[in-house]
């Protein structure tokens, strides 16, 4: 038996009483929540920083370029010597072209993968395929951009001879491939959270798996699926490296997908990689474009949030 020697006959409570009321402990208890709260404020400060940075510099930009010219102008030629024009619509159009193509690619494929994984695949297949899709989501966008420029574009040029080296189609498709995992994974989550009892109810009536998926699971998971698509749109709008490498740098105001374009993000990259002097109109223009992009993605994010909150199914 352990001897009493080490404690000189003191009980544990005596020992505890001796070491109690150490000042440090009390101070820690008081200060830690404050420090943690300050850390939490960093993320708020980041948002404030983003918003204020964009607003201030954009305001500076509108001192030089009229806001109506910016919002409704159909010509974006900031580098044209004496007479630069800053009409943002071509950039927005370029961004939208890429986004629409991406969504056309990603939503059907992502949804198909989600339905397959959630409704048809065995547990083992699901556990193998999902992590691989996550790998696809983890590939850096610069790699996708390189892939678009050196692989997808040449193939497309074989199919469509009129396709330029820089175009909207190739980056659009590759951005679509990039967001497939996002749609597949979020939609699969939404579908998996539909309780099995509902599926079993339909299967017991003799419905096929397809009928269950289409008429029972999809409607129940619809809000999750739509919000995943909206988030994917937001991601496509803000995608930068793919469109910078494969989309080109000529903002045009037309609906062609075979010609060179420029997106909002690609413009910011173009100016940043060049040497636009600090304080020039071009320098401020990247903030105005960034602000425009920020507003677009913010609306999409809030919309996705709203959809998944508002139409959430209660089981």
């Amino acid at each position: 038996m352990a001897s009493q020697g080490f404690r000189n006959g003191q009980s544990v409570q005596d020992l505890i009483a001796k070491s109690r009321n150490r000042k440090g402990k009390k101070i820690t208890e008081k200060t830690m929540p404050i420090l943690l709260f300050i850390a939490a404020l960093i993320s708020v400060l980041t948002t404030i920083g983003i918003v204020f940075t964009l607003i201030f510099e954009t305001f500076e930009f509108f001192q030089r370029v009229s806001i109506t010219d910016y919002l409704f102008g159909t010509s974006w030629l900031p580098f044209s010597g004496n007479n630069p024009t800053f009409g943002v619509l071509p950039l927005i159009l370029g961004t939208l072209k890429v986004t629409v193509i991406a969504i056309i690619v990603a939503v059907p494929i992502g949804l198909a993968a989600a339905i397959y994984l959630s409704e048809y695949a065995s547990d083992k297949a699901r556990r193998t395929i999902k992590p691989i899709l996550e790998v696809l989501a983890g590939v850096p966008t610069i790699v996708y951009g390189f892939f678009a420029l050196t692989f997808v574009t040449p193939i497309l040029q074989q199919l469509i001879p009129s396709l330029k080296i820089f175009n909207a189609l190739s980056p659009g498709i590759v951005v679509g491939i990039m967001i497939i995992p996002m749609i597949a994974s979020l939609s699969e989550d939404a579908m998996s959270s539909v309780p099995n009892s509902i599926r079993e109810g339909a299967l017991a009536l003799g419905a096929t798996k397809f009928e269950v998926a289409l008429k029972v699971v999809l409607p129940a998971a619809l809000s999750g699926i739509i919000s995943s698509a909206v988030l994917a749109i937001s991601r496509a709008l803000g995608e930068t490296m793919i469109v910078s490498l494969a989309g080109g740098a000529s903002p045009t105001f037309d609906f062609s997908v075979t010609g060179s374009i420029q997106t909002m993000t690609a413009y910011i990259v173009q100016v940043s990689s060049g040497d636009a002097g600090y304080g020039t109109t071009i320098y401020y223009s990247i903030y105005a474009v960034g602000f425009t992009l920020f507003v677009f993605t913010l609306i999409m994010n809030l919309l996705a949030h709203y959809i998944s909150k508002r139409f959430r199914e209660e089981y």
Partner: protein
Amino acid sequence: MRYIDDSVVMKRMKTRLNRNKGWKALFLTGTLFALLCLVILLVRIVTQGVGYLDWDFITNFASRRPENAGIKAALVGSIYMMCIIAPVSMILGVATAIYLEEYAKKNKINDFIRMNISNLAGVPSIVFGLLGLTIFVRALALGKSLLAAGFTMSLLILPVIIVAAQEAIRAVPQEQREASYGMGATKWQTITRVVLPAAIPGILTGSILALSRAIGETAPLVVIGIPVILRFLPDGLLSEFTALPMQIYDWAKRPQEEFLYVASAGIIVLMLFLVIMNSIAIFIRNKFSKRY
């Protein structure tokens, strides 16, 4: 009389079953297409780049001539940058998660912080670049330094780390906290001795995945103005540097065909980097997954 005519049901059964089969095949095709894209992408890059991948490529600086081009400065720069991002983003992220999960009461301020974090996660990375350019590079006069880029990237992945850490902390059962409080432990003791040890595997896994995103991220670095052709290694926090994705971007833009192979070799190095980080994350997840 019966409302259901068995013969009609049986006749329709066949088309229904066929339709089920057809759609199943289509859904499978969709899944396989996504996987195929990954395979093509990887095979293509490896076959293009592997010929240029040798020890010289790792130890050489960037060069105008493709055969001499190397990735040393970029590789070292990326590693240094990660050494800034990891502590900064993890300390801030875990602290925020602890605050939100353990201390925050349900009130307007905390709801605002939560909403703010979820929106921040959706801000495009290039916008973070603009923030970094204005605040860190210019206002705080850090220049195009490791520190400026590291801070910018830390803020970029902060929301991801916060969410991962929140989930890990939430997964620690309430009974564990009760057991600790029941012994007379204070709140902070309970957090540091019970909650965090149990949540650490989850936090690490999420953080490593977030870090690997930061390593592959290019857009903020471009906006900050990180140089591409650099023939020296960074020698301090305020030193200029370059990073793997910047170097790849620069090579990919060049017209000479050889540089495309060099870019592929660079991509292989970057992807290996990511594979190693992800393997560590998966290892931690499997090794320390707790059951309660």
